[in-house]
């Protein structure tokens, strides 16, 4: 597992060691993107901003009210990255570092927005860590087995399943999630981070991460089931 501690001042070897343990113990993550950026490779920077743009926008939009505000947050993130790139030592993955900066910026702007629009936050549901069942209990018999099992989607034509309209449904379903589920779902399933990276980015436990992800995915599946039936 790669360290995801973003601004840690700890040395890059396990705690408790008082001295440098030798090169064979320290994992030096090889990150071609980071090397290319530091060497001033414009094509690499352009490819990187292109690759991260969609997931960054989705994450920013989950905190900020509109596309313009989200785009500003993405822009400020990259400008912050450039300002601090020389100090970044690669202890976390470059992608984790970039998204960590975006999270800080988007959350801080969201707090400012909430102060300006004090009622806005009242309309945002949460409950991302609830423990109730994620599937309508009426779909199971008293024996706990399916009485109304899900229809397989294998008969849905691929053109429909992968079509623009389905993707729009998925986007809407993600946006409708409670904030705590939404940020985990976006980081895991939209941006493609692994579980450890998401726990580090959001400072949550592995179990908490899985509960939020499970509830979020179950809601998106349910929205798709309703749309595809």
């Amino acid at each position, binding site marked *: 597992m790669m360290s995801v501690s973003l601004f840690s001042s700890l040395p890059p070897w396990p705690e408790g060691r008082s001295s440098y343990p030798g090169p064979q113990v320290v994992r030096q993550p090889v990150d071609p993107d980071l090397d290319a950026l530091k060497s001033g490779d414009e094509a690499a*920077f352009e490819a990187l901003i292109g690759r991260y743009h969609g997931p960054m926008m989705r994450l920013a939009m989950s905190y900020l009210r509109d596309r313009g505000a989200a785009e500003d947050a993405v822009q400020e993130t990259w400008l912050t990255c450039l300002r601090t790139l020389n100090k970044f030592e690669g202890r976390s993955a470059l992608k984790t570092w970039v998204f960590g900066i975006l999270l800080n910026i988007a959350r801080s702007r969201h707090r400012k927005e909430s102060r300006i629009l004090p009622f806005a936050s009242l309309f945002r549901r949460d409950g991302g860590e609830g423990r109730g069942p994620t599937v309508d209990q009426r779909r199971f018999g008293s024996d706990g087995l399916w009485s109304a099992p899900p229809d397989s989607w294998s008969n849905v034509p691929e053109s429909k399943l992968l079509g623009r309209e389905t993707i729009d449904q*998925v986007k809407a379903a993600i946006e409708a999630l409670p904030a705590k589920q939404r940020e985990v779902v976006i980081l895991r399933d939209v941006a493609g981070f692994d579980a450890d990276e998401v726990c580090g980015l959001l400072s949550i436990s592995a179990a908490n991460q899985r509960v939020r992800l499970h509830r979020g995915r179950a809601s998106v599946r349910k929205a798709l089931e309703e749309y595809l039936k």
Partner: protein
Amino acid sequence: MTCREVVELMTDYLDGALSAADRARFDQHMQGCDGCRAYLAELRTARMLMGRVGSEPVPEPLKAELMNAFRNWKSS
């Protein structure tokens, strides 16, 4: 394990977070349950579709501004 229990373990299963004993009971249930297999396939499809939500081009004005900032950073 019942279907009601199995559906709530699917994210743990996909993340490899089930204990060996739970994993064995989960696998045993899945082998004989079309409904739970369909549910797991749908969760996987939902995950795959969410991966497609993220592709979005950088608007030209933003790209121009960021490339300019990168060139300034490079020359500083």
